[in-house]
């Protein structure tokens, strides 16, 4: 950890928020992608079964 | 098209609600400011132009969803869309009628409400001029928002969320006209910008709104 001096809280919280937001967005995007993919597969299987 | 304008005006006056409601709302909002920030006349005088602008803007918002709603529901809008009148002209007339029944009365009453907020001496004239120059933008941009949300059940709140950001340039330049004048500074740029924005919305927004209406009428 570099010596951040008196600004340690500022710099760390800025990086903290930035990283949290990026990771949060990525996770939400992935979760939605997985969910929709699964839903689509279910519906398409239903259609295949009904012919 | 003039006939259309007259019809809309007649409808607005007959239904009564919108016209008086906006003025009453404006009054109440202005009254709320001293309740909210304290009765110190120095503070009130400083923020008066901005508050009056915000109050007029919000009051103008109230009757926006009515611009197209009734005609949309009873099918008149469909008829207007296929009539020889250009839909852009219909939009312009409706926005104009909104301004005549809401924006203009609010502009006229604003100096009176200025008394309640200790508006400084030289500011009354500028306040009136600035609202006169800027309120048409509120009506026309509002018509755009109304055109986008006309099909929606509870479109009122969404309408506000969509339209209020569009009001920001007009609000900034318009309120600055008075504030700068009070401080003894040159407000020509602000005035020019406000007028320019209003003219711009008058000229171009009907096209965007008509596009949105056609989409919603499909």
């Amino acid at each position, binding site marked *: 950890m*570099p010596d*951040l*001096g*008196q*600004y*340690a809280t*500022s*710099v760390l*919280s*800025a*990086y903290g*928020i*930035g990283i949290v*937001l*990026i990771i*949060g*967005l*990525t996770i*939400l*995007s992935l979760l*939605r*992608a997985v969910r*929709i*993919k699964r*839903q*689509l597969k279910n*519906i*398409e299987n239903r*259609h295949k079964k009904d012919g | 098209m003039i006939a259309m304008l007259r019809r809309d005006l007649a409808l607005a006056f007959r239904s009564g609600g919108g016209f008086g409601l906006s003025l009453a709302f404006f009054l109440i909002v202005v009254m709320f400011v001293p309740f909210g920030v304290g009765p110190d006349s120095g503070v009130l005088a400083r923020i008066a132009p901005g508050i009056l602008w915000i109050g007029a803007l919000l009051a103008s918002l109230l009757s926006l969803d009515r611009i197209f709603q009734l005609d949309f529901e009873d099918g008149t809008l469909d008829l207007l869309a296929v009539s020889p009148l250009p839909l852009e002209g219909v939009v312009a007339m409706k926005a104009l009628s909104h301004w005549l029944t809401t924006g203009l009365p609010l502009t006229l009453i604003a100096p009176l409400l200025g008394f309640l907020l200790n508006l400084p001496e030289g500011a009354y004239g500028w306040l009136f001029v600035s609202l006169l120059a800027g309120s048409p933008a509120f009506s026309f941009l509002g018509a*755009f928002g109304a055109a*986008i*949300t006309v*099909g*929606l059940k509870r*479109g009122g709140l*969404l309408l506000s*969320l*969509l339209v*209020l*950001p*569009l009001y*920001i*340039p007009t609000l*900034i*330049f318009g309120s*600055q006209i008075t*504030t*700068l004048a009070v401080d003894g*500074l040159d407000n020509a*740029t*602000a005035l020019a*910008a406000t007028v320019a*924005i209003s003219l711009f919305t008058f000229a171009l*927004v009907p096209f*965007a709104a008509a*596009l*949105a209406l056609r*989409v*919603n009428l*499909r």
Partner: protein
Amino acid sequence: MSIWEYANPTKFMRLTDRVLPVVTVLSVAALLTGLIWGFFFTPDDYKQGSTVKIIFLHVPAAMMAINVWVMMLVTSLVWLIRRHHVSALAAKAAAPIGVTMTLIALFTGAIWGQPMWGTYWAWDPRLTSFMILFVFYLGYIALWSAIEDQDTAADLTSVLCLVGSVFALLSRYAVNFWNQGLHQAASLSLDEGQSIADAFRTPLFVCLAGFTLLFLALVLLRTRTEIRARRISALIARERLA
């Protein structure tokens, strides 16, 4: 083989099947490299101390916040003119990414400002403009959610994006005018643009590349999701008719 080939959803899915993993890896690499380099291996600034390190998040996020909106504007125009569904869905997919970038810019900007201005928030023209951009993004996203018919939603949000872009630009001028008029001290600007020392320039570029690649990866992922979601609606609609 023109780029319009990929307007076809199936072609798009197949292309991104191969491209997405690569972009993801590249973006993670660039982000990690840039941020680690910037955080650990750059000197402090003479005036701003270690807070200058915030630049590596703030500047790329701010640039992306604007670039994403511009991308949405372009894809909205493509939808309106050429009716390519992938384009409309790409705009829809990009918006939440833009919101996040704007939030990062706002938060890091405010935190950076605290030691410099003594307050977490100041109506500095740049921060104010980003606040306004944030609200424009919100309206756009809200409109997509409010409309059932996807084509109607695509049309209306595109028009909103168009009109919004004009007024977002107008707001920028208005805000600059508005802030000047208040005779604020000139030291409020976080003007990192012109006097970036060489030590900062390269890691900053790497971070910029990382953020751009991140956006690319996320927007491709989200667009694929939107395309699938659209297919689901179509299948459900067909079930109802049957």
